[in-house]
């Protein structure tokens, strides 16, 4: 799980072009939206594409994202349980 969390942080930094942010700057349990990283709705779209592209997880209901993208740890747990690649 720790390896997946680190990989996920790196992918999010790359995909969202978070310059000046290192994996160590993102707390595992900090909120991704609003506070914490301060991501927004366009980032949510980017994360949905990331989930499908890298892990084969297709989120059919965008409302699901609200729960899944709560924090890096919640996201990693969901990926671990549902990934198809």
């Amino acid at each position, binding site marked *: 799980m720790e390896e997946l969390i680190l990989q996920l942080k790196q992918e999010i930094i790359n995909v969202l072009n*978070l310059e000046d942010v290192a994996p160590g700057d993102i707390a595992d349990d900090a909120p991704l939206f609003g506070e914490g990283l301060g991501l927004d709705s*366009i980032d949510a779209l*980017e994360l949905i594409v990331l989930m499908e592209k890298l892990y084969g997880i297709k989120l059919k209901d965008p409302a699901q994202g609200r729960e899944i993208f709560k924090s890096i740890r919640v996201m990693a747990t969901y990926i671990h349980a549902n990934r198809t690649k």
Partner: protein
Amino acid sequence: MSKVNDIYILAAKQISVQPPLTDEWMDAPVSYGKPYVRSIDPDYKLYFEPNAARRLGKILKRALVTSRQVTAAIGDAKLDAIVTATGLGCIENTELFLDTLARKGEMEAMLKPTHFMHSTHNTIGSLIAIDVRCHGYNSTYAHKATSFECALTDVFVQLESNRIQTALVGAHDEMTPTHFTMLKRTGYLGHAVNGFSGEVALSMMLATTPKESTLCRLRGVEVEYCPNDEALRQMLNRLLQRAQCSWEEIDNVMVGVSGQQANDQIYAGICPALFPGKKLLRYKHLFGESYTASGLGIYAAAVCLSQQRIPAHLFVDRESGEQRGVKHILLYNQLEGKNHSFILLSACGK
């Protein structure tokens, strides 16, 4: 006939292949011995918070930085309009998602939304409006080599007729490696018989009321498609007549010669007869060729009028020294003998 407004260029800023956001090219122009050159970007960290800049491609960062700098020229006055000229729009982002589709075989649903959202031509004008908080008129002109002249005509008519009092006019184009390769294959750029390709980010603030920092006056714009010699002469006469300026008053004519032999030969065929006795100036040897390069021509002429001098390197004949005291500069651009335009600028108070 009701009185029409005078129009002033209050400020102009560029990011191009010359040092950015300065007029250093007047005294220390940067030369390039290669056919493909990209702009010299300023340190964008000085202008954007990292989180605000992370989605912006270079063309958007350049547009926002130059726009912010010239918007300051109107002080507390309201910005009435934003008019943008771009030949290719946000081509880098367009290429990114098209490449993902075509070359990597990704499905449409897997495309990065940011690249798609920031790929249209009017993304530039829209983002400027959000950034400078302008809810007024917003329009984008994408007509290849006459994009800038069309944008300028729109603003000129609206300012002259008092529909608006201030307007931000921009010329924005980037030259990606892919697009340059395509132009090279067609023989348009990239060979010994061509000039070099550049990129453009130019923002100009126009207004009906002058400020202390005003660069010059914009007296008129004329654009025409495929005029014959007589129609071209009439076009020029019409411009001068409307501006109430005589041919004898024009100091110099700035033309769009670029080193591209085929197009320069058209200038060589037209200029001696159309502009007898006038010394020709150039600007594309500094800024390179691009769809909206003529925006940098008007910028170069405006700086010369503001500083009341024309540096020696701007003269086509390369034998003239620096010229002091300049009142009126006529700009003439044409591409492939089809799209012709005249723009007349005058020093303030002339």
